[in-house]
């Protein structure tokens, strides 16, 4: 009972419950939902799809979690994803040997380096100039997509490069590469922030910037690092998204992904007011969002009702997660217990 109560009081309880409910709905609509088969040495099944398709959102959400923990927000991730995809594809297309590993390595490296520049740019606006994060990153959100389209000239750049495609739809030891990359990014972020003092500094700056400054925390450098990391995450996600269809679509790659990422972070229990963050929560949040998308497809929710369905799920999760609801629940439980006690006394 007490462990159950403890679980129920965790911020992650309801999101996890929601995830399970969504799984159950899928299972009803499609009994083979949980089936995972091995086909040509590769894992295959709906759950694997959810993990693979959710990987880009998760990767961005990891970066976003750290940004949000510092009281910031990064709206430019979608544009950065589009730019990195566009850069990589145009390099691969422009090279004489698109299929070679070296070409792809160069393309990926350049794309990631450019994202670092973009991240530093965001960090500069936020940390050095002190512009409010939402506006600072709105600039790159708008202009960045323009830059991506400039690179592709508004066309979809289709590349025929097996090593690049491997990034999006390949498998290693049966596991999709995208999932492995996401796991690595997630693990590294967790390791770096929790095994060093970085996590504490990020939280401290997010909670009370002035007190942190006076305690000697270098908030400025920290903000630079965090925005740069977030842009790097966005670029990695952009590469995966692009490689998934082997085509750079500057218009649509990562469109609205910032909303999904922020939603994942918040469902995971991190407050947009900054401070304490939970990467594990973000993982759950990202899974909830991707499962939601898949559910819409498997259950066959008509496109016109999709948005309403999404609204309902988000609302329900938020309401269940609310401290008010928790209080109401515990009050109810107490009253039940009281009644039970009285019953015992009466008998």
């Amino acid at each position, binding site marked *: 009972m007490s462990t159950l109560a403890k679980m129920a009081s965790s911020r992650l309880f309801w999101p996890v419950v929601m995830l399970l409910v969504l799984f159950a709905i899928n299972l009803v609509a499609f009994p083979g939902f949980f089936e995972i088969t091995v086909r040509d040495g590769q894992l295959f099944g709906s759950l694997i799809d959810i993990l693979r398709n959710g990987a880009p959102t998760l990767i961005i959400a990891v970066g976003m979690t750290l940004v949000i923990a510092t009281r*910031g927000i990064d709206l430019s991730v979608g544009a950065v994803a589009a730019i990195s995809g566009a850069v990589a594809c145009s390099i691969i297309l422009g090279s004489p040997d698109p299929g070679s590993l070296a070409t792809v390595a160069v393309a990926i490296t350049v794309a990631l380096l450019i994202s670092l520049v973009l991240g530093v740019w965001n960090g500069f606006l936020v940390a050095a100039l002190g*512009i*409010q994060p939402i506006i600072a990153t709105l600039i790159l959100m*708008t202009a960045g997509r323009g830059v991506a389209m400039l690179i592709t000239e*508004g066309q979809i750049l289709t590349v025929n490069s097996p090593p690049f495609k491997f990034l999006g739809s390949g498998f290693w030891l049966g596991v999709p590469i995208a999932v492995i990359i996401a796991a690595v990014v997630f693990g590294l972020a967790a390791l770096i922030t929790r095994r060093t003092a970085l996590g504490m500094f990020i939280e401290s700056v997010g909670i009370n910037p002035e007190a942190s400054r006076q305690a000697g925390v270098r908030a400025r450098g920290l903000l630079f690092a965090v925005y740069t990391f977030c842009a790097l995450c966005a670029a990695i996600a952009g590469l995966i998204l692009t490689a998934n269809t082997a085509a750079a679509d500057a218009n649509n790659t990562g469109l609205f992904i910032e909303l999904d990422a922020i939603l994942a972070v918040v469902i995971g229990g991190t407050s947009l*007011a900054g401070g304490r963050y939970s990467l594990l929560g973000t993982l759950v949040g990202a899974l909830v969002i991707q499962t939601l998308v898949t559910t819409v497809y498997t259950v066959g929710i008509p496109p016109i*009702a999709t948005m309403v369905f999404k609204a309902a799920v*988000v609302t329900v999760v938020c309401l269940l997660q609310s401290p008010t609801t928790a209080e109401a629940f515990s009050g109810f439980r107490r009253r039940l217990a009281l009644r039970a006690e009285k019953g015992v006394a009466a008998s």
Partner: protein
Amino acid sequence: MTKLLEAPATDRPTRPGRGTGTGGGAPSGSGRRRPLAAALGLITSPKYGPVTVTALLFVAIFVIGGFRYRGFFSGQVFLNLFVDNAYLIVLAVGMTFVILTGGIDLSVGAVVALSGMIAASLLQTGWSPGVVIPLILLLTSVLGLLVGLMIHVFKVQPFIATLAAMFLARGLCYVISQSSISITDPTFVQLAVSRIPLGAGLSITPSVIIAVVVVAIAVWVLHGTRFGRTVYAIGGGEQSGLLMGLPVARTKVLVYVISGFCSGLAGVLFTFYTLSGYPLTAIGTELDAIAAVVIGGTLLTGGYGFVLGSVLGVLVLGVIQTILTFEGTLSSWWTKIFIGALLLVFIILQKVLTARRR
């Protein structure tokens, strides 16, 4: 909990009195200052600085545009900023209330679309505009109320609560109709096409008048009523406001009702503008409204800012758009890059000019 998207430390004047020369040692003795010093003081003051600078920059852009493009520097081009952006002004007014409390409302764009859809579909089935418009305002206010309750009672973060409302409103648009519906109701058409002459060949539309009235009311409410001051109080410190015995709960919910109402009204003005309802309309308009408010000098953390600043913010966005059309040769991507660049130049100038000696 409710403070969203807080600016970094440098944005928040924690100890503004220190080392600025304003607010100096002898507040009582600060008599007449020289006009230049006064102007400088206005620019660097934490309260009026951003708005003043925004106004100056707006004028500067307008003048530069006038030199660069033929026919730009005219009264009608200026008035068209209001004609074309009346709905955005109303949206920005509602958004200002919300942001002043430290919240945010992402649903406004979708609600604009929704009220357009409701208007178009009801008018199509023969309802009278006299019923339809109040009904829309009522419905969007109720939506705002629900969002407000979700935020206040259930402590859901505004970003998320309004995101859910955005999904809902957009979803309802599709449910009403997937395709666009045109409006042929004579009253609406009349309101859409009629022009109010101001003399000298200048004219405005009824929407502009409505927007101006909304702005005037908002200014009065924010600066002249207890409700308005409580809005600022919540942005300054919700906990403190609560301990001071201010009606925090009611006010916090009400700002979302106001934002809902303004979105509904903006939606109606938008239908005057486009004479149709279309489920995909006004996507991303919430970002325009937020940008306008922030450019107008309101802090996203709440507590500091003015409605008139937000109006200026809308005008700035409008003038950027006007420059784009006058430029007339930009390809799609350069258009985006150009918007971003102008925004950047603007914000950096604003920042540099309001920067206070540290």
